[in-house]
């Protein structure tokens, strides 16, 4: 009887011991190579709050291999883990280790035991822990990288300090495609969100207020997209685009998205009116991708000479321009500067994103057009706003597409999407930028079981945006508003500056 009573605790204890039991790394062959791990975390720089950088062995043959990993902090502390196919890092130990070694690095030693070959110990690699903190959350859209039709998709929010992801709003709730989301400098209470489809609308969340708008007016080209908030929160710059798609017959590119016309305009949230400036809505010029400068006193945008479409689609190229903006009056200045004359280099600028400290501006450079997400040659570039110099960010670029990018609120971290993983499904990468504009090797958004997670995920990430706190959106209310029929109509205020405009090139 006594024996029986003890049987189960004993069995549990034995199972626990077996679980805890790790095999010692013995007679290991030393390899001069770094381990082939997925994601590639060799030599990356991470913020001290980041979720554990679990990784797997890349080769499918190594799925059952025993992986022994030791992480040693330069300032002390050590972590050890052993599991099949990859790592399973303890979150709390990881955080302690990172906290202790912030400003320094971890040395990671990976040993792999394969049935046939025994143990191999690979060359150790470092993970640098930067003291610059990162915003705790990253919002993005997840959608299948399709063409015109969309299935289930949504805006999601990822806690960067853990693996938790939750939906902000999904297509099933609004029976439409949710896209073009923008927060005001990471403020989750200031959100502009566009919905396409039967219930098309723009949802605007201003602190406690939530309203839906019909941003198309008889005086403008159509619905407002590509939002960017003014730093003071009163204005939102949009572009309005008559967009079409073309489909490549050849193999390298799948899709071409181009405009037949586009203008830039600014929405005044207090006056409930769209400010249309003639300098930003010219028929012969296509203006798109607006972004307010960090001080709010100018508006960046991309500008291209109109071309016959689709015949000369490959000759549509955009420069990066800037026009002064007076937030007090909602008036535009009389000078348009060309900051990056990409056209003269046979290139095209898209997605300009100024850093919030006003020092830099990151943009995507591709061969032509504005929808660089489908251009494998698209790379990230950095403009020094002070000197006007720009350079390719070779530290973070790859042979495949780099496109959507965003700054953390302290302008020290950048999140961007890249197709480098498999050539089709975009994934999020994070990288640090120092005060001189040097970037570190980017690392892929961590997951608990990265190989399984990303191989099972048949959606792309796009439009990443850092947020400083969780987005507390009343989804039921938002769904009701969007699926309802009421839409606030917008007034249009025309501002004329074109006859006084002075253009210049800042090459």
């Amino acid at each position: 009887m006594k024996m029986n009573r003890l049987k189960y605790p004993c069995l549990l204890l034995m199972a626990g011991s077996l679980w805890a039991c790790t095999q010692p790394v013995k007679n290991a062959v030393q390899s001069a190579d770094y381990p082939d791990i997925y994601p590639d975390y060799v030599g990356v720089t991470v913020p001290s709050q980041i979720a554990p950088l679990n990784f797997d062995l890349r080769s499918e043959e190594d799925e059952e291999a025993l992986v022994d990993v030791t992480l040693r902090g330069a300032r002390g502390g050590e972590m050890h883990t052993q599991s099949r196919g990859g790592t399973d890092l303890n979150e709390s130990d990881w955080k302690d280790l990172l906290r202790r070694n912030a400003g320094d690095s971890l040395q990671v030693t990976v040993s792999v035991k394969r049935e046939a070959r025994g143990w191999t110990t690979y060359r150790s690699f470092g993970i640098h822990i930067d003291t610059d903190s990162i915003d705790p959350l990253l919002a993005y859209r997840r959608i299948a990288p399709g063409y015109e039709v969309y299935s289930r998709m949504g805006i999601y929010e990822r806690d960067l300090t853990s693996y938790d992801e939750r939906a902000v709003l999904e297509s099933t709730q609004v029976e439409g495609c949710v896209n073009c989301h923008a927060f005001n400098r990471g403020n989750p209470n200031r959100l502009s969100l566009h919905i396409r489809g039967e219930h098309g609308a723009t949802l605007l969340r201003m602190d406690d207020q939530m309203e839906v708008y019909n941003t198309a007016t008889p005086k403008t080209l159509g619905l407002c997209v590509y939002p960017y908030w003014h730093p003071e929160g009163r204005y939102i710059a949009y572009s309005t685009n008559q967009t079409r798609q073309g489909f490549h017959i050849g193999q390298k590119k799948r899709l071409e998205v181009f405009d037949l016309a586009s203008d830039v305009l600014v929405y005044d949230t207090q006056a409930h009116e769209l400010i249309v400036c003639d300098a930003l809505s010219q028929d012969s010029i296509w203006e798109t991708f607006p972004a307010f400068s960090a001080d709010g006193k100018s508006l960046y945008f991309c500008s291209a000479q109109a071309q016959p479409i689709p015949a000369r689609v490959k000759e549509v190229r955009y420069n990066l321009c800037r026009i002064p903006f007076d937030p007090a009056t909602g008036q535009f200045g009389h000078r348009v500067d060309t900051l990056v004359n990409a056209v003269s280099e046979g290139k095209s600028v898209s997605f300009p994103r100024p850093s919030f400290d006003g020092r830099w501006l990151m943009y995507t450079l591709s061969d032509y057009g504005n929808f660089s997400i489908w251009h494998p040659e698209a790379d990230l570039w950095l403009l020094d706003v002070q000197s006007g110099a720009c350079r390719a960010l070779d530290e973070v670029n790859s042979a495949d597409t780099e496109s959507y990018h965003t700054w953390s609120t302290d302008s020290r971290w950048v999140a961007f999407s890249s197709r480098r993983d498999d050539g089709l499904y975009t994934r999020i990468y994070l990288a640090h930028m120092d005060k001189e504009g040097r970037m570190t090797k980017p690392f892929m958004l961590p997951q608990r079981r990265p190989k399984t997670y990303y191989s099972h995920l048949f959606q792309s990430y796009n439009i990443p945006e850092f947020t400083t706190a969780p987005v507390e959106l009343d989804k039921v209310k938002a769904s009701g508003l969007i699926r309802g029929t009421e839409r606030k109509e917008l007034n249009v205020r025309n501002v004329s500056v074109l006859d006084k405009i002075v253009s210049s090139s800042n090459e």
Partner: protein
Amino acid sequence: MKDTFQFIYGVFTVLFALLVGIYFAGFYPCHLHFHEQFQLFLCSADYAREVTGVPGGLADYLARFLTQGMRVPWLGGVVMAALLTAWVPLTQKGMERKEGEPWRWAFGFVPALVALAAYCDEHVMPAAAVSILITLIADRGMACLNSAPLRQILALFVIPIIYMAAGPLALVYVILRIAAERRLWFAGLALLIGVLCTLLSQYVFPYPLSHLARGLHYYRYPAVFPTAAWVMAGATLAVILAGRWIPRLQSSPRRWTAVAGGTLVGLLTVGTAAAFCNTSREELLAYDYLTYRHDWNGILRKATQKQPDWSLSVTSLNLALAEAGQLGDYQFRFFQRSTEGMLPAFTREYLLPLTTAEVFYQLGMINTAQRYTFEAQEAIPDGQKSARCYQRLAETALINGDYPVARKYLNALKKTLFYRGWAQRRLDLIQDEEALTRHPEYGYLRRVKPSEDYLFSDQEMDSMLGRLFWGHKENRMAFEYLLGYCLLKKDLPRFYECYPLGKELGYTHIPRSYQEALLLMWTQQHDSYQGMPWSIDGTNAQRMVEFIRDYHAQRSAEYMKQRYGDTYWYYYAFE
């Protein structure tokens, strides 16, 4: 006596199962294929978690698991027979049937017969039936508990669980329990819990209340009210409650009444199947299925028996003709639906684009096939993925040399029951570039796919086909599609311009449709055949003369169709 009745009932229940199985496997298999092709059941914990994590998720998961079997007709028949037959004893038990009451026994088949009628619509999802079965099983489980307070408390406690398992059809369970307990407080609490479950779920799950209240998985189109599911539920409730309350017959049942009841069930089964069977839909789905299986001879046999007339079926037929090398000869022997029956324009749906994708794939327009497949999959109304689409997406990536993407789709297919072997063979191919180049299908398509890049334009399909053929002159199908397309567009100058391109393709004779087009062109400009540069068959030349004569005589359209319906001239003049 009791055994005799049980035997008779058993025989007729088996007969019902057989009739249902034979009906679906033998007469309606393409409806079952349709279900199977527009889902992707993965044997993985993540998938299970994802599917079961919403109201009705367990029923949906079980239904998706069963739907996999519909890939094989006999197994699909077994699945449908099992689903519908399981309904019968659950209904009869719910009626609290006294053993040996034949009419009450026969009455217990009504919900299953309603379900048989409902499942003649391919958009009624198997999850609806599974949901109702779950509620009936739960009800029977509760009925087994003898202690009334325990049963009543437990019955209330499990309502949220049943709601999560079966969705709003948990109402069947709630009503049955209320009817069984007959306590006002119980009824009030049960309804309150049911309503609260539905109301609160909108705050937890990403669906509007209206969708949650009508059920997420009962009908393929989430925006459409799932009438069939609720009618099945209503019929089940009505039969069970009526069965309980209809007074029992006083006289002892006789064997003949049991046999008569069983025969009636059999007749109603056949009658229901016949009345609700949508043969034209089944025929359309059959064309799609045969196209998917590359059963070109099957398509030709089917078309010979009955002329296809939908865009999808005509597109399948033209593809089958091209694959059999008969497009030039026999295209106009069959009804033609303009260019929409050859290369239909893209539509935002999921069936026709897949057939069109097959045409582009066979032509070598791999990127276009990939796009149509991707879009078709995205257009699946209930947001599911499709094993069939994954197969084609993997193949197009394989042909394009996008191996990481191909591997991604193939690895997903490796997690299925029926596609893992197929996927593994393709994964092996990725490892062996030479084998891939030698592969009769992929190797050939790699060679003939467009080597130059330009943007797709459905307004310039003939130009694209021309460029496709010009780039790879071994692509005879591209040439025949080019000429066929020009003929369907009635663009004779373009046909005439392109016709000489086929000189090197090794034709032993001028295909009949081309002869007819050439004759038509010639006679539009000449009074006699003298000097005609092509070797035209004498019979065709004579028929052309007769056609012109009858045409000028303004013969009736019916007469012309009867006499010349198999010619290009008829299409040109009358279609």
